[in-house]
């Protein structure tokens, strides 16, 4: 254990150096060209996103590639994918906190930010996909003149509660983590304006030891609450499918299957962000090869669970002897979207295995590419689940499929744009690494040495 703790950070860091360096990123660092480039492109995409949403609201969901029988299209694929990405953050910050994994410290902050943005975007898609989004509030339990309430047996209602709870709790967790660092920034800020802003956000945190005591306790408790929450969220999402009677949806493996998939794509995204971040802001001392190595291992283990789920689905379909289940698999493997199915298998079951090699786990460029490839494959996996299942379900006479439209693409790419746009802002205005936790870590390291 102790050996680990030491090796998490590059030696030679002091409270002062860590504090100054990380806060400098926000306060003094000049705006870099790479950042501007990222910012502008993502902002442009975000505008496309807004345009697409407006169009879909104004003209109708018919603009997207959906029909009967495939009434759930890309928006649902995107929900599942984004929520998955939104998992790594909470896992790192909450579960690893409970497990006392010191390596989380350097990455939990931006992983949490990532979680909030991803979950937020995921939360938008169900509404984009609604036929009459202006009536979304029918999902809320509020006393209305129709005396009607939500239909609590519907997994969509569960979803609504799960996702909104998840977003709220993640924000609380993240903000509480930020408070001491905001105080740090307040005290380092040079201009009055920044002092006032950070000062107000810091809520007058002064580092009192009594405050610290309660702070730590609540932080731990929140982590304790967030841990089952994060597991529940994707399980609930999976129930949207699992409680139906559609072959390909109706499967008991779904909750663990979806959670594992979520971790996989979530960690892919963390790596995708960590690599450029580390390079751009010289964070090598804080985000070390070891971090990547560990994250790669998490990916691998999550990936194996996903592979197991594939296997179980296949087996159940074959073993049940149910013609409809079998038909569903045949359709996936040979139907209109067979290529996607095979890509999914090739990447998630095949390419993933490269992570067994330490060489791969520790080579940043390879890991970076792998992360992006696997994350794409994970999107495809969700596509295969959501779309190819109803495409050919019970009655052949009703079979049919439909292909995506420009709006589907605009919404997917646009949402990516919005995501990176928010990430850019976060990187620019808030400490990407939890300063006080780094200090704590340094303190522990000193104790080790003495």
């Amino acid at each position, binding site marked *: 254990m102790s050996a680990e703790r030491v090796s998490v950070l590059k030696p030679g860091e002091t409270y002062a150096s860590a504090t100054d360096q990380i806060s400098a990123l926000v306060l003094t660092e000049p705006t870099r060209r790479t950042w501007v480039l990222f910012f502008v492109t993502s902002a442009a995409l975000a505008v496309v996103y807004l345009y697409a949403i407006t169009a879909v609201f104004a003209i109708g969901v018919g603009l997207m590639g959906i029909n009967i029988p495939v009434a759930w299209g890309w928006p649902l694929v995107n929900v599942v994918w984004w929520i998955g990405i939104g998992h790594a953050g909470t896992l790192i910050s909450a579960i690893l906190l409970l497990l006392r994994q010191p390596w989380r410290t350097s990455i939990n902050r931006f992983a949490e930010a990532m979680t909030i943005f991803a979950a937020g975007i995921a939360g938008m898609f169900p509404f984009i996909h609604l036929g009459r989004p202006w009536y979304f509030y029918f999902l809320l339990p509020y006393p209305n003149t129709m*005396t009607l309430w939500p239909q609590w047996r519907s997994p969509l209602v569960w979803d609504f509660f799960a996702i909104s709870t998840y977003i709220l709790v993640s924000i609380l967790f993240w903000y509480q983590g930020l408070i001491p660092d905001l105080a740090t920034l307040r005290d380092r800020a040079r201009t009055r304006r920044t002092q006032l802003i950070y000062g107000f956000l810091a809520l007058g945190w002064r580092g009192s030891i009594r405050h610290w005591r309660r702070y730590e306790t609540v932080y731990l408790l929140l982590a304790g609450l967030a841990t089952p929450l994060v597991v529940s969220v994707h399980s609930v999402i999976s129930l949207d499918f699992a409680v139906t009677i559609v072959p390909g949806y109706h499967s008991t493996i779904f909750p663990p299957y979806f959670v594992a998939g979520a971790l996989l794509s979530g960690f892919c995204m963390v790596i995708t962000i960590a690599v450029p971040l580390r390079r751009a802001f010289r964070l090598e001392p804080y985000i070390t090869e070891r971090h990547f190595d560990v994250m790669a291992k998490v990916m691998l283990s999550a990936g194996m669970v996903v592979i197991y789920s594939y296997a179980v689905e296949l087996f159940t379909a074959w073993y049940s002897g149910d013609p409809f289940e079998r038909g569903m698999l045949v359709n996936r493997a040979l139907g209109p979207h067979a290529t996607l199915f095979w890509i999914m298998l090739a990447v998630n079951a095949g390419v993933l295995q490269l992570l067994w090699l330490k060489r791969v786990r520790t080579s940043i460029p390879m890991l970076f590419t792998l992360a992006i490839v696997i994350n794409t494959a994970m999107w495809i996996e969700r596509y295969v689940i959501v779309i190819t299942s109803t495409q050919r379900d019970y009655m052949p006479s009703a079979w049919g499929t439909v292909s995506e439209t420009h709006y589907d693409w605009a919404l997917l790419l646009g949402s990516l744009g919005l995501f990176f746009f928010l990430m850019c802002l976060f990187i620019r205005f808030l400490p990407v690494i939890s300063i006080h936790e780094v200090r704590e870590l340094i303190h522990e390291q000193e104790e080790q040495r003495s």
Partner: protein
Amino acid sequence: MSSRQLFRPRANTVSRIVVYGSVPLCLVAAAWSIALARSSWRTQQDRFVQQPVPFSHEHHVGGLGIDCRYCHTSVETSAFAGMPPTQTCMTCHSQLWRQADMLEPVRRSARTGQPLRWTRVNDLPDFVYFNHSVHIHRGVPCSTCHGRVDRMPLMRQARSLAMQWCLGCHEHPSPHIGAANPFDPAARPAMALGKHPRAVLDSRGDPLPRLLECSICHR
């Protein structure tokens, strides 16, 4: 770096209001919007509307005691109570108040054959299918929904007509039915007169919960 305070003491109060006040603020907003949905601004209850002719139910019903069915002929047989054709007005007004300017639109209509265009007062959404005849037959007094029209110089919407209000009766019909003469503006449901209409309803119609089902009013 300055060692002076960044914020004045007043800032403490402000910040606390912001942080702790946010929650009550949301609740107030919610309450307000919920209240708004029930306000007469929204339901149009008790709002007077411009009509081509300022027809007074008070005068015709309360004063002259004309029966509802004299003008609203189909109220017992049809979903729609019916609006009187110009002819109906002219049966009297070809004799009475022949010069009154107030009635010129009626006379013009009779002359030109161009119908009068009244503005709807009691207007349900198009997806609600209310049927007058069955309610009348159950002995629901007109006044239950339309109020004391015999006291209305100008017509106004007497009830909110919100779904909640409809369900009020549909959930517990008994106290609202079985009036001897529903058309009497002062008619009162049987229960109010000590009779027991519950039996009346069951002998005639469906089990009560039926009345709360969507398909009763929506198609």
